[in-house]
């Protein structure tokens, strides 16, 4: 039983992870900017809850006012498209994003 649950959890995270690659990383790649974006969000929103909420908010309805990126950048490349993902998957993606990129766990 335990084994099955363990397997399920592992496969789920793997699944999540792989879908994160698909859903987000295909555009964002492994570039430093994803890292930098997390820094900006952390700097602006401070706590995990608020960061996730803000990102969710942004991805659902990206506008230049909400963006944490430099004005020049948004001006030049424009905001991204609204996400096509459903809320649940989007939240999962954001969770993965936060888990991988958050600053808090990297402070030593």
């Amino acid at each position, binding site marked *: 039983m335990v084994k099955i649950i363990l397997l399920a959890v592992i496969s789920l995270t793997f699944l999540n992870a792989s879908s994160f690659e698909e859903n987000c990383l295909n555009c964002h790649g492994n570039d*430093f900017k994803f890292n930098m974006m997390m820094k900006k969000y952390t*700097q602006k929103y401070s*706590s995990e809850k608020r960061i996730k909420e803000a990102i969710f908010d942004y991805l659902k309805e990206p506008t230049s006012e909400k963006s944490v990126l430099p004005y020049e950048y948004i001006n030049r490349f424009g905001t991204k498209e609204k996400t096509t993902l459903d809320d649940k998957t989007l939240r999962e993606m954001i969770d993965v994003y936060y888990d991988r990129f958050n600053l808090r766990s990297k402070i030593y």
Partner: protein
Amino acid sequence: MYKSEKQTIFYVLGLYLSSTLLLIATLFATYYFYKQDELMHAEKEILKEYSSALEDKLLFVHENSDEKYEYPRFENFNSAIYDIDKNLIFSKLDAKIDNLDKDFFFKGSNSYYISSLKPHYLGAAYSVVEKKRKPIDILNDLIITALIIITITIITSFFLVKLVLRPLRDNLRLLDNFIKETTHELNTPITTILANIETLDSKNCDEKSMRKLQRIKTASTTISNLYQDLVYLLLNHQISSQNEELNLSEILNQRVHYFSQAANIKKLNLHVAVKENVFFNADRQKMERLIDNILSNAIKYTGKSTTIKVVLTQHALSISDEGKGMSQDEISTIFQRYRRFDKTQGGFGIGYSIIKSIIDEYGIKINIESELDKGTKVTLTW
């Protein structure tokens, strides 16, 4: 030094000292709190500087690191950061902080300063800096200085009070000397009169002159008695009791004899029942005053041709007359008069106040039984 003078010195000294000490205490307390406040303020300033140093470092780390973020560490203080929802992000503190609302406080031997940060570098919305608290030990120094000042005040105030009271004292002394001299001079004529009457040859007198002579003698005795009372009251303050084992029986007999003349004139029947060799430890003069006063009161207030009983037992002396007596109210006013002595000094109360002061000194109890038109019985017990 008089008792009253000593008392005055103590009162003035007490008043002066208590007010001065109160002033000193207030001053020092104010200074202490002010100083403490100042030190706290200084402490807070230091912590504020630490806090901004931490903020600078946080910014630097936030901007210049990518993979790992090294939390800024300092030699002279510890710190911690919290996110905007007050969750701990990272801490190097000794203690756990549960309240981020106060900006400056002490906990244990540390002082803390909390400031809110914006932007939230590394996510930090609050920073807490902690430093070993600088001991505020001005209290010891302050107490020592206060003690020194207080001793100086006490010493100077003592001299000051003496100086201020000096004129008063001189006046008192002058008055006292005057009274002493006059009373002394009063003594001589009285004794002369008494002595001379005593030596008068009664055989040379006819009966009429004899009676006049006796009246003169009684009057002189009364004056002498009054004089003794006065001396007692005036000099009492300075004369300490010279207590000795007195043969009370002998003294009583002497006093009765002394008043016998006065009793004769009123045709009183003196009924004396004195137990032999009753001893009592007291000052001779005072015991004489005590007996004289009670006895002379009895003689004064009893009617003509009545009986005065003087009874001495081992532990009691009672003197009773058959005079007009006193009502219960009057008896209680006598006692009041004793108490009021200081205010109604002189006049009627002299005899009673002397009685009162002497029985108080020797712990003798007094009991006055009296019935109107029947007589009064004064009983002393010890």
